[in-house]
């Protein structure tokens, strides 16, 4: 009978789903702890690149708070403290490059000066736009020490747009996106400076 056969097949498929579902649950159970630990280590590594480790004695990766930006998006900030006093904050900003979103981690001191900037992820053209990575060129290192008044806001652009930052030969859109995102990030800091450095 057809319905009988259908039922058999459903049971077989169901049994396989159950079996492999259990296998996955078991694997997840075994690996969950290690996966969380690895994610935390990764975050610590990326934070220590944008905030010099000499500036803090806490673990910024676990000292986080969530703020909302003007578009209502939630931004997680990580706080670096020395002897309980906040010495810097780090947070991720997003820019639009040539091939989609560029995620950038900013480290800022309480006065609003950049401590360090790193590109976290991007999909830019290898060999052209990927020079925003620290691994490929030193371009991204040039932002440390700058702030919203240094250079003046009008100069927070690539040279082609009348600003002071180098674009790459053959790639203007990528650095333009990065410079814009960093400027927006600093404006976000200026708007939320109090909340960021005075929260407990």
């Amino acid at each position, binding site marked *: 009978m057809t319905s009988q056969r259908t039922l058999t097949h459903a049971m*077989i498929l169901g049994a396989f789903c159950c079996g492999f579902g259990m296998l996955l649950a078991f694997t997840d159970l075994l690996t969950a702890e290690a996966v969380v630990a690895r994610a935390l280590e990764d975050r610590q590594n990326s934070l220590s690149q944008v905030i010099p480790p000499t500036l803090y004695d806490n673990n910024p990766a676990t000292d986080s708070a969530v703020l909302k930006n003007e578009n209502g998006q939630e931004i997680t900030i990580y706080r670096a403290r020395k002897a309980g006093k906040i010495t810097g904050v780090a947070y991720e900003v997003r820019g639009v490059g040539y091939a989609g979103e560029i995620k950038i981690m900013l480290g800022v001191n309480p006065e609003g000066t950049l401590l360090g900037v790193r590109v976290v992820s991007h999909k830019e053209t290898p060999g052209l736009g990927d020079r925003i990575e620290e691994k490929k060129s030193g371009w991204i290192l040039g932002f440390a020490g700058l702030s919203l008044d240094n250079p003046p806001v009008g100069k927070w652009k690539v040279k082609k747009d009348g600003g002071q930052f180098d674009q790459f030969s053959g790639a203007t859109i990528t650095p333009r996106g990065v410079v814009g995102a960093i400027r927006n990030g600093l404006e976000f800091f200026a708007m939320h400076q109090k909340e960021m450095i005075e929260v407990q």
Partner: protein
Amino acid sequence: MATNYNRIIRDGLWDNNGVFSMLLGMCPTMAMTTSATNGFGMGLATALVMAASSLLVALFRDQITQEVRIPVYILIVAAMVTVVDLTMNAWMHELYKVLGLFIPLIVSNCLPLARLEAFAAKESVLPSLIDGIFMGLGFTLALTIIGAVREITGSGTLFADASLLLGPAFKVMEMRILPEDTTVLMMILPPGGFIATGFLVVVKRMIDLRSGKDIQMAGAHSVG
């Protein structure tokens, strides 16, 4: 009938190579062969998934009925990919940082599915495992060769970052073949993937022709 393991191994590595003969698994092939190291890593991860899923399908081949076989195969491949993904993330994290983004791509690779359908569904456990392993290694070989061609012509290096994937001892493999200003950027962009793969398929056919072998049409005995 005695199983001809030599035949299975030769088929997997060369005669019926997943990429160069059957032209299967083109999505990860194009995406991951921007360098020899990436191709190699992606190939090995795929080989692992193929070996495990071939073994499982052969084990359960009497239970898997004709009508539900495709969903069950997909279920098995997807489960194996997830297991590899989680385990690598937890215990081989450095490797995972290089390959992690691409492991889910294995699900979209039709080569494992093709081997399950064409081989593991009909054969017993050991031959299926061997087929899974060597089809996977043949895939690894193909991806490494395509990656090497694209990397040398596109970046001028060979096996760059191999030490990230295999450990510091393999630093010696990282070479610069061509000076940076003589490279052709296009080769590491998507068109380069098609061009390199196309030429290598031609090279493989020419070698086969020279050795007087019958040329198999793409996929001629991949589908049962």
